[in-house]
């Protein structure tokens, strides 16, 4: 069964959170606590390597992710990372599935996973699938009924790049009731990517392309997962297109049986000060503002964190933070709310003290202006490098989890990557 992905628009309002934060920080004067960061798993060449995207968590605290490389056939894995048993500090990794470079099942996973309420996992691959197109697949890993039994891999859709279908899916899917939504980076009517919908069912269910990007000055090249609001509209970012061909935030609204796209914001204006190449997931706050990041642009041309607020004609942008080499640069994934204090967590792929990226926290200002960044982890390459996925926050403990694509154990080009834990 599919489940509704938590909708952050239902979280506390930002203003409320800001108030709460300051109440906690100043009225209660709780002493600040230094965070603890640790590597919970180091990938290796002949195991699996280069974890892609972020992690998801089940109700038991198991983490799930994918690696681009390694596994039985060298073309990637889906894995489970189980927390230490009592008396141990060692996390246990189990490969759930090794992607095969032949046949139609798809290989080289290209995004983090999505988990449903039954613990089934959904993901996409960059290659394999359709015998002519080899354009990737949407797959499901079905949780075994018996603990320890193998997971079942099922191809839900193989992208064909024909009949306006897409190709090269590059972002995790979103689940809504009995429907899966996702994007592909290319393919579709203008070879600029699509948004697709799959309603699982008999004979493969009902698959449809609900939008093709790229017409005229349209957004082009989806570059992150979809976000669903309570009205069933979809939001996302593209790396190109828009008024300045530097990327856009788009909305797809359903009206009857058809979907209508609107560009909420075009990046690249102000000589790039508004950001260039938006990437990763978007977030809502309670009033309906959107939050995200760009890989480039801003005052240092190394990315920004931004807020978009709805206005009568188009949305207005507020820059939250300008990334730069000293404080971390070029995020490759979106951010994660900390609902306990209204701050945002994210990663930068490079920069910070050791040039190998960071995990940051952005705290809202009291009286307007830029948000304040706190670096929770600065990767040294030995303990990870090039984080490319979003941060997972355990809602119970508040602990943070994530991956780095490089760093860690040597042997792979750029080293093999790690999974990390931060106790804020």
């Amino acid at each position: 069964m599919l489940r509704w992905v938590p909708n952050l628009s239902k979280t506390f309002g930002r203003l409320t959170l800001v108030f709460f934060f300051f109440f906690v920080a100043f009225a209660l004067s709780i002493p600040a606590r230094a965070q603890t960061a640790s590597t919970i798993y180091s990938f290796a060449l002949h195991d699996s390597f280069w974890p892609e995207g972020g992690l998801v968590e089940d109700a038991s605290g198991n983490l799930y992710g994918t690696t681009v490389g390694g596994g039985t056939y060298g073309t990637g894995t889906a894995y489970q990372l189980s927390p230490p048993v009592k008396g141990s500090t060692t996390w246990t990794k189990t490969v759930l599935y090794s992607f095969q470079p032949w046949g139609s099942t798809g290989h080289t996973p290209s995004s983090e996973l999505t988990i449903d309420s039954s613990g089934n996992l959904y993901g996409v691959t960059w290659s394999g699938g359709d015998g002519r197109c080899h354009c990737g697949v949407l797959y499901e890993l079905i949780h075994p009924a018996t603990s320890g039994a193998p997971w079942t891999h099922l191809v839900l859709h193989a992208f064909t790049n024909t009949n306006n279908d897409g190709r090269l899916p590059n972002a995790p899917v979103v689940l809504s009731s009995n429907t899966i939504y996702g994007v592909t980076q290319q393919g579709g009517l203008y070879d600029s990517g699509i948004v697709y919908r799959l309603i699982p069912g008999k004979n493969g269910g009902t698959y449809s392309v609900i939008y093709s990007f790229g017409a005229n000055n349209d957004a082009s090249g989806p570059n992150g997962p979809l976000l669903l609001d309570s009205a069933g509209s979809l939001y996302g970012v593209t790396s190109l297109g828009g008024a300045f061909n530097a990327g856009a935030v788009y909305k797809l609204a359903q009206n009857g049986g058809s979907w209508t796209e609107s560009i909420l914001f075009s990046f690249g204006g102000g000589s790039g000060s508004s950001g260039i190449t938006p990437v990763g997931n978007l977030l809502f706050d309670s009033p309906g503002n959107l939050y995200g990041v760009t890989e480039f642009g801003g005052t240092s041309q190394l990315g920004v964190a931004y807020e978009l607020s709805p206005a009568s004609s188009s949305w207005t942008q507020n820059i939250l933070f300008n990334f730069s080499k000293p404080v971390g640069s070029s995020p490759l994934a979106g951010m994660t709310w900390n609902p306990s204090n209204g701050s945002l967590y994210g990663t930068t792929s490079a920069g910070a003290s050791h040039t190998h990226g960071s995990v940051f926290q952005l705290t809202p200002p009291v009286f307007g202006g830029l948000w304040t960044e706190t670096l929770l982890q600065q990767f040294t390459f030995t303990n990870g490098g090039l984080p490319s996925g979003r941060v997972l926050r355990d809602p119970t403990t508040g602990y943070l989890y994530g991956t780095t694509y490089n760093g860690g154990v040597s042997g792979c080009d750029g080293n093999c990557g790690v999974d990390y834990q931060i106790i804020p």
Partner: protein
Amino acid sequence: MRPRQVLSVALLSFSSFGVVSLLPAQTPSVLTRQYDNQHTGQNLQETILTPSNVNSGGFGKVFSYPVDGQIWTQPLYVPNVNVGTKGTHNVVYVATENAKVYAFDADSAKKNPNPLWFTDFLNPPNVLAVPCDIGAGLCQLFPLVGITQTPVINLANNTMYVVVRTQETAGTVVSYVERLHALDITSGAEQPGSPAVICSAVGSGGCSFGGPVMFIPKVKQGRPGLLLVNEPGFSQGVLFMGFAGATGWVLAYDASTLQLVATFFANDGITRSGYGFGGIWGAGGAVVADSAGNVYVVTGDGYFDSIINWGDSLIKLVLTLNPATGTYSLVPADYFTPSDEACRFTNGLDLGSAGPLILPAQGGTTPDLIFQGGKASTLCDSTPSIYIVNRDNMGHLGGQVSLSQTAKAGSSSSPAYWASATANHIYNVADSDSLRAYTVSSAGVSTASVMQTSNTFSNGSSPAISANGTSNGIVWALDRTENSDILPGVQPVILHAYNGTSLSELYNSTQAASGRDTAGPSVKFQVPTVVNGKVYVGTQTELDVYGLCPCPQ
């Protein structure tokens, strides 16, 4: 005087651009990587594409062909190929890392959406392309390593030569195999005597070719394009192939019999225990040859002693016959090694990250030059440089003719050359730098670039030139835009075209609206093939073809 027996035999000039004895005159072919054995990267018989018609208004992506694996090899092109019952076609050939060779109609995917033929060297799950984490590891080529070396075509016998790397399982025994295949270009069928097993070994085993170093297929990755060279005594020429992975190798095969003729290894790993390497890769272009049949290879990091270890060196290899035994050797007859070789070795700065360019004779006192880039860093040199080497007297350690300035990171790609009516230029792209042109004449190569593009290339580029002789020169270059540490990478490759005399941009594949010209995701080592009014670009997922519009959405 080099120890070589010279036979007075007039032979065809193999693998030179446009050598098509049985085909209509003026119909060009592209038979080898970077267009000729000197790797000038030029097609001087292009009469359709000109600076006046290459713009987004009238030029763009006209069609594409999906393939099942990444295309690290340069597409090859032969006109007027009789493909049996499928008629006569201009054919573009591509080889993929998933160990397939495809022959596509070069003019229209609409009329011929399926391959004219394709040859699959796999038999899954027992015979697979080799996962990159096997053996040499690192996964700089990712995820599969099947065919990386650009094949070479010999029109004299209608044969394409291609080296395929496979992992083969029989029961619990896993072997790694390198094979040389000779395919009929009209059908994809194996020619008589094909394939020849270069080496097949169980696990980490290897093959001995008579020296102290084993050739171990589990770790041996062939990267440079194959070279077919006219050598005395060989009716169809000699195939030269370079390998990286632990120790650099060059193997020479008789193109007629597919028999091994001679070998050369760049490092023994014994003289200084634990130090080997000298990998031969050059971003796919490390092996070149002059018109006399001398072969030049450039090596990556490795121990250097100028005796048996040749790390970070440009080496002239001469195929030499021993009249007493009738056997051949690859003799290192001359070499150039940068004076900072030891520093390069310490800091991982391969000279051989870039392929050499043998320049056409320029006159003057030192007419025969080689342009050799490579990785650079101020760690080893205050001014990162390109080396200009006299191929008639290569100068040994620190003996370059001159230096030309380059960007601080140096290059991991190969240059190209074009002589316009007014000047001779070398076009080179360093990492995170513009495409720059250097002048070359009888006075040598300019120490600084004389013009450059307004845009930069994150990961360098190996350009190609199309021109009608000395006019209508266009420089074509591919841009892999994203972080080079992320493999396979997801962003489309961008095709750029520049006026060859000014480097002003004529076109790039992001200009047209509605994603009309979007290419597939980028790979490394790729060189655009420009011929007969089309530009063929290999990507991770498809062969993209650009030409004069109409350009469908």
